């Protein structure tokens, strides 16, 4: 927890305001609203198909929401906004790609601009600095498509950071990583959020690797979201309301498990929003 960042509402990096998305006739996101502050680490949690990627695409401007809006640093997002760094869920780099990790990071500086970049010591230095920030100097000169999943993840983070974004979005960066690499990436991102004063929003389907670093949680289920601190959100009553049926939050050996726990909630608020009344424990 970093109270300093939370006490400065003016450093709000991102506000998602009542965003709804319908795809193929199905409501994927339903009035999702939350904010993210600079310097904070926010976990976007949801199971497969919960709409995490869709939500990130809305924030990036790749998916137009059918209702609601996205504010970046307090202003409606411009059509082309490059103050967001993005690490997609699947990148799929060709192993034969004629690019070193270093070249891929350099492409993050101004890869969207027309023309050919003139090499300069300043550019090389900036790239080297980013490679150091993600602890990737060791494999900076290897072919990027042949690096391991965890190594590629670091390079993609450096690629996103080198443009000095205010907001960094990562879509399931821990999928395919073993526990240790996952932890390394998480603490790296935590450090980056603090040191570079940027907001990190990271999606996962499994929240436990983030417990030690998350400042805030956005929990997605059934198209709706609740947000707050871990203690505010990851509770049986709140999540039961979100899911619309009884779920139990269990704390086991420092880990949190969310398990389905009984019949559908009938006495919660009509729309099943957080704050549903405690349910009988009967089965």
């Amino acid at each position, binding site marked *: 927890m970093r109270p300093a960042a939370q006490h400065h509402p003016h450093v709000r990096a991102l506000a998602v305001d009542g965003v709804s998305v319908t795809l193929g006739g199905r409501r994927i996101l339903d009035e999702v609203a939350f904010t993210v502050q600079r310097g904070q680490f926010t976990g976007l949690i949801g199971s497969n198909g919960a709409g995490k990627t869709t939500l990130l695409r809305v924030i990036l401007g*790749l998916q137009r929401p059918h209702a609601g809006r996205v504010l970046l640093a307090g202003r409606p997002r411009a059509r082309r906004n490059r103050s967001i760094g993005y690490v997609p869920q699947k990148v799929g780099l060709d192993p034969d790609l*004629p*690019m*070193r990790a270093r070249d891929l990071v350099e492409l993050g500086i*101004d890869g969207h601009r*027309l023309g*050919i970049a003139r090499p300069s010591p300043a550019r090389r230095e900036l790239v080297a600095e980013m490679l150091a920030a993600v602890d990737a100097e060791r494999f900076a000169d290897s072919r990027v498509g*042949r690096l391991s999943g965890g190594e590629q993840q670091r390079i993609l983070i450096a*690629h996103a950071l080198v443009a000095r974004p205010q907001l960094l979005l990562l879509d399931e960066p821990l999928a395919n990583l073993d526990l240790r690499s996952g932890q390394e990436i998480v603490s790296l991102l935590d450090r980056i959020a603090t040191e570079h004063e940027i907001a990190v929003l990271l999606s996962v389907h499994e929240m436990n690797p983030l417990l030690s670093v998350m400042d805030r949680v956005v929990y997605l289920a059934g198209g709706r979201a609740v947000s707050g601190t871990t203690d505010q959100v990851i509770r049986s009553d709140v999540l039961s309301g979100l899911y619309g049926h009884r779920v139990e939050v269990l704390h086991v050996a420092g880990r949190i498990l969310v398990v389905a726990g009984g019949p559908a909630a009938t006495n919660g608020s009509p729309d099943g929003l957080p704050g549903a009344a405690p349910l009988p424990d009967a089965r």
Partner: protein
Amino acid sequence: MQNAWIVATMVAVIAGVVGFFVVLRGSAFPAHAIPNGAFAGAAGAVLVGVSSLLGLGVFAVLSALGIGSLGRRGRHDVATALALVAMLACGAAFLSRTTEYAPEIFSLLFGEVLGVSTTELLPVAGLGAACLLAVAVLYRPLLLSSVMPEIAEAKGVRSDRIEIAFLIVLALATAMTVPVVGALLIFSLMIGPPAAARALTPRPGAAIALSVALALITVWAAIALSYQTNWPIGFFVGTISALAYGLGRGWNAARTHHHQLPHSATFTDASSPGSPAPPLGQRRQKRRRPI
């Protein structure tokens, strides 16, 4: 004869540069379909008696636009196949009415560099310069959207426009190269040298330079051999390109193997069937140890 060397040099430079992106983007199929579509245009031009370069250019650009607009989100194998068969159908129709031009048709298919006249050099040079300029302007977004299309889109790069622009560059490159190496074999010049180059170096800039160098060697050798033997130049371009690619892969495979050694030194020799003889592997491993 001098014209042959000049035009072949220009063709090799363009094929090397444009081919780098063809291989990078996995656009080999469009790179095959556009020249064949363009060939139909040339056959049509011969039929109505206008410059075959004009017919090539028009049909190549039409094929490119068809492929680009019908293909969806980078997937256009079906659109490409349709464009290809539509153009070939036209080509068949045009050919059936132009039997007396058989030698010219043959040279469009398989290449005829030795008969290039000085007046033909200028349009080729113009098209080549346009291609190089376009690639230079598009360079960074083209690279980014080829490698990581989603990130490129998030940064405001319009991948669909980049795609169309690139296909048009490919079409122009095709129009200038087909009369020299032929519609059926231009493809090999755009795939072989760049594919070999990317196996040989992990740097994008160096890979483009190497791709051009290999394409130059290929066409120069092909001209010399074609002149000696009187066999079609396309035959030599195709075989030398394939050979370059094979050698590039082989060299790369050997290198990759010794790169991997430090990580799995104990298992590599036992588990990988294609490993080189142990003494070589050990010698290379020693050289790399300081890392």
